[in-house]
């Protein structure tokens, strides 16, 4: 499968084969990393991380992935210190930065920014989040985490909990899960239901979907509970946020009704939606999920740079 020079912009651009291929490469890289400690596939290659809005976790994960591949990193973590503040267009920033680097990772507050950047750049662009639209590498690492935990994705019953209206991670994950034989429970307050067009699309693709507000009644059915934060910053109206703030908390009392094998995921950061007491239980998968970002992003960087032919 030829990934050299390919952009990673949206889950919509992937086929199931693409996803499986990336997950397999990530798994092989993780094994190799465990054996050798450090790799040098991307030696001499430079990653530019352009983060127009803060995201320490995603940025560090990409940087760690590039370093573990033996490459180096340049970039910025806020638009405030760049020429954007002087009025430079995104297109010009991209055209400039591609002169200094071999691959660009972009986080931008506007939806569609990564697509535009990819059209402008001759080098690969990887979307690290564009507004409330897509975060495809998060989706891939989520799938990777599920696959590593269960050995499969097909046949699982998965609950998506929290902000299903504004949460781009759950939108992309749901779209990607449509490639698999899964049953989805969408658990959210009424105000934060999954957008209708996404549900329609999933149903058209044959996904069995149930919408509910009832976490406790649903939890016994689940293999995976994917929890999301209710993101204050995405609400156009503070009053709307206050109505749903703290709607759900996953704690040991709630988990008493869960299957023994239930695994809890969260894209993090969390606020109060998962009680810290859950961290020590066998259900907690979210820190392992953070780790998954490294091999998955190593795979994407290496593949788009075209340096992983031997893996």
């Amino acid at each position, binding site marked *: 499968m030829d990934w050299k020079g390919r952009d990673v912009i*949206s889950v*919509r651009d992937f086929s199931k084969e693409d996803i499986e291929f990336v997950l397999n490469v990530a798994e092989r890289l993780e094994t190799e990393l465990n054996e050798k400690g450090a790799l040098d596939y991307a030696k001499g290659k430079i990653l530019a991380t352009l983060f127009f809005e803060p995201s320490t976790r995603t940025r560090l994960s990409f940087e760690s992935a590039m370093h573990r591949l033996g490459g180096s990193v340049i970039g910025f973590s806020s638009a405030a210190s760049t020429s954007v503040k002087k009025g430079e*267009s*995104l*297109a010009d920033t991209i055209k400039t930065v591609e002169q200094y680097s071999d691959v660009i990772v972009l986080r*931008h*507050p*506007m*939806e*569609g*920014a990564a*697509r*535009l950047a990819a059209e402008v750049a001759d080098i690969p662009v990887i979307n690290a989040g*564009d*507004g*409330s*639209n*897509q975060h495809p590498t998060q989706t891939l690492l989520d799938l990777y985490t599920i696959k590593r935990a269960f050995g499969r994705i097909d046949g699982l019953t998965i609950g998506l909990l929290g902000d299903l209206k504004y949460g781009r991670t759950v939108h992309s994950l749901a779209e990607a899960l449509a490639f698999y034989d899964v049953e989805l429970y969408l658990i959210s307050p009424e105000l934060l239901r999954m957008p209708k*067009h996404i549900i329609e699309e999933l149903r058209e693709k044959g996904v069995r979907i149930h919408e509910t507000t009832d976490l406790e009644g649903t939890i016994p059915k689940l293999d995976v509970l994917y929890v999301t934060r209710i993101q204050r910053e995405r609400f156009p109206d503070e009053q709307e946020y206050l109505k749903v703030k703290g709607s759900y908390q996953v704690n040991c009392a709630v988990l008493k009704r869960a299957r023994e094998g239930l695994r809890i995921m969260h894209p993090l950061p969390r606020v109060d939606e998962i009680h810290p007491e859950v961290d020590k239980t066998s259900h907690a998968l979210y820190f392992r999920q953070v780790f998954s970002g490294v091999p998955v992003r190593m795979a994407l960087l290496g593949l788009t740079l075209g340096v992983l032919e031997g893996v």
Partner: protein
Amino acid sequence: MAELKVTAIREGTVIDHIPAGKGLKVIEILRLNRPNGGVLLLASNVHSGKLGRKDIVKIEGKFLSEEEVNKIALIAPTATVNIVRDYKVAEKFKVEVPGEITGILRCANPNCVSNHEYTVSKFYVVSREPLKVRCHYCERTMEEEEILGNL
């Protein structure tokens, strides 16, 4: 006989089979209501065998560009366009919603990059009936009402 209710035109375009009530919108988006334009005739609520009721727009001295035909297709997908020369229909075709809509529609998402950076807008038609399009950039789906408001 319905066509005789409005004057025949010598040279120009007749847009027929517009769903009743959409004729004014066609005039608006083609910007035909400017004072320096040619003769413009609108017949509204005309009996139609196919549609029950329809609107007809006649524009003297104007032939439509591909972009204008595509705009009509988004508002009035049942419309037919007649090119009139010397009082006779020289050409007649049905409008068709294209698979991709480039340059003529603005994204309704205020946070879409296409509303902030220099781009040519692009949409993919997700469904023709009801009309739904998806923005190439922000991937948001727009439905008929939003489409009409952003032409």
